[in-house]
C-alpha cells in the first residue's frame, strides 16, 4: 500500500476518534491491506495524536487469548500505542461520553524501570526490567462500525485502544506467581468471571517478551517508565452508565473503576 493511502486511512481513523464516530471497516474497502500496512496506518493515527499534544506512555498487547485468536483467525498477538490522553487514575470516574462503543478488559500491567530492546528478549529479561506490576482495566473502543473488525482493521485502529486505568496496588513480579495468579472480575458487586495469568500466552511475561521482540524488529525500543498492558485475562465486559467493575489479582490486589455517561453508540 502506498504512503498516500496509509496517510489517508491513518488520518481518517484519527478524525473518527477525535469526532467520536465510526468508519466502515478498512478491509472491506481495501481487501489487499496487509498487517504491516495496518501497523503503518496505526503509526500515522498515533502520530496525529502526538502532534495534537499527547505523549506516548506505553503499549498495549491484544489478541493474546485463544478465544480472541480463534475469533479473528490470527494466531499471534497484536499491539497498539498508549498515549497520555488515555490515562485515568484509579478513583476517577470514566466518562463514557468520550468513547464510541467501549468494552472493558481486566489485565496485568507492567511498568518498566529499564529499556527492553528486542530481538532476543526472554520472559526473564521482562521480569528483570520490570519496576512493578499492577491490576488494570483497559477500556477498549473501536472506531470501526459495530466492531466489525478483522485483524487489519483493529491493528490500523491502534489495536482498538480506548482508555486505561492502572490500579494503585503495585507489586514486585519477583514476589508474585504471575502465571498462576488468579483473577476475579466483579461487575456491580456480582462475580462476572474468573481467570488466571496463564490465559495470556502461558504467562503475561511471555506476552511482554513477544512485544519487545516484535517492536525490536521494527527498530522501536520499549523505554524505562513505559506502561505495558499485557493482554486481557477476561472476556470483554459490556459497560453502561453507573457500572462499577473490580478486578482482584491473587497475591497482588484490586483495581476498581466506575463509569458514567453515555457512549456514542
Amino acid at each position, binding site marked *: 500500500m502506498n504512503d498516500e493511502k496509509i496517510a489517508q486511512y491513518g488520518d481518517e481513523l484519527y478524525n473518527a476518534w477525535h469526532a467520536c464516530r465510526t468508519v466502515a471497516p478498512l478491509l472491506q474497502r481495501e481487501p489487499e491491506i496487509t498487517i504491516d500496512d495496518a501497523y503503518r496506518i496505526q503509526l500515522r493515527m498515533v502520530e496525529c495524536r502526538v502532534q495534537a499534544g499527547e505523549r506516548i506512555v506505553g503499549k498495549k498487547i491484544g489478541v493474546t487469548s485463544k478465544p480472541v485468536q480463534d475469533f479473528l483467525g490470527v494466531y499471534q498477538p497484536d499491539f497498539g500505542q498508549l498515549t497520555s490522553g488515555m490515562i485515568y487514575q484509579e478513583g476517577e470516574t470514566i466518562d463514557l461520553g468520550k468513547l464510541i462503543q467501549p468494552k472493558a478488559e481486566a489485565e496485568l500491567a507492567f511498568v518498566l524501570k529499564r529499556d527492553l530492546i528486542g530481538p532476543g528478549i526472554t520472559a526473564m529479561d521482562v521480569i528483570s526490567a520490570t519496576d512493578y506490576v499492577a491490576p488494570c482495566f483497559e477500556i477498549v473502543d473501536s472506531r470501526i462500525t459495530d466492531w466489525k473488525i478483522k485483524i487489519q482493521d483493529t491493528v490500523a485502529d491502534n489495536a482498538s485502544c480506548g482508555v486505561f486505568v492502572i490500579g494503585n496496588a503495585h507489586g514486585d513480579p519477583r514476589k508474585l506467581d504471575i*502465571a*498462576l*495468579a488468579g483473577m*476475579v472480575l466483579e461487575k456491580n458487586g456480582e462475580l462476572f468471571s*474468573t481467570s*488466571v495469568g*496463564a*490465559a495470556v500466552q502461558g504467562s503475561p511475561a511471555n506476552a511482554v517478551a513477544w512485544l519487545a521482540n516484535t517492536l525490536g524488529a521494527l527498530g522501536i525500543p520499549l523505554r524505562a517508565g513505559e506502561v505495558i498492558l499485557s493482554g486481557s485475562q477476561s472476556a470483554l465486559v459490556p459497560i453502561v452508565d453507573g457500572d462499577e467493575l473490580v478486578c482482584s*489479582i*491473587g497475591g497482588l490486589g484490586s483495581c476498581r473503576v466506575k463509569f458514567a455517561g453515555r457512549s456514542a453508540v
Partner: protein
Amino acid sequence: MNPGLNLTREDIVRLCERVDGAQRRAYAIPKLTDEYPAMTIADGYAVQAELRRRYLSRGSRLVGWKAGLTSRAKMLQMGVHVPSIGFLTDDMYRPENSAISTSDLVHPRAECEVAFVTKKTLKGPHCTRQDVLDATDYVLPAVEIIDSRFSGFKFDLPSVVADNGSSARYVAGGRARYPAEIDLRTLGVVMEKNGEIVAMGASAAVLGHPAEAIAMLVNILAEQGEELAAGSFVMSGGITEAIPVKAGDCIIARYQELGSVSIRFVE
C-alpha cells in the same frame, strides 16, 4: 414418609441397586427420572444414603464429602442450577502421581478443586463461610475424577444426587496451607492435559469463595440430619470445567500458593 420424598422405600432400594451396579461394573444407564419422573432431589439423597450404607457395609471408610456443581461453568455445562453433595470413601482415593485405570470407569472427566481438611465438627443449618474457616485444619489442592453413570453425562439433579454426585476418584496432594495464610478467593488454577492448557480459572468461581461451598455442604448435610465430622476431607467443587480423559492422558493441575497435583491415566 419424609417430606419431599415421592418414592417408596422399595423404589429407593431398587434405584440404589441400579446405581451401585453401574458404578461397580462401569456401565452407563439412563437417568433415573426417565422411569421415575416424579423423583425429587430428596429422593436422590435417599438413594445416595442407601448407597453410602452399602459402601460402608462392604468395608469402605468414609473419608469425607464433596460439593458438586458449585461453579457457574459447571452448572452451565451440566444444565442444573443448584449445587449438590456426595460422599467420598477411601477406595475412591488415589495418591498423587499415580496411574489411574480407566477400564473401571465409564466416561471419566477431571476437574480442579480446593480441598479442606477439618479439625472441628461442623453442624448446620446456618453454617457460614467463617465457621468453615474456623474449623479448617488446612487446605490443599485436589483433582476430582468424576464419572457420571448416566448415558452421555446427561442427567438432572435428582439423578446425579442418587449417583453420588458423579463421584469416582479423587487425588489430593501438592502443598498444604493454613487458610489464614493465603487469599482463598483469588487462587489461580491451570489444568494441563498432555502439556497443553485445557482449563483455567480462579477459586472465586466456586460460589464466590470455596469455603462458601463447604458451608453449603454442611447445611445440606443438616437437612439429612447429619454433621461433618472433625478430620473430614472435603472438596469444594470444580473451579474449572471438567475435562474428558482417557488412557494415555496425563493431567497436571497447577495452583497458585498450593503447588500442583499430577496424575496419569492407563487402561
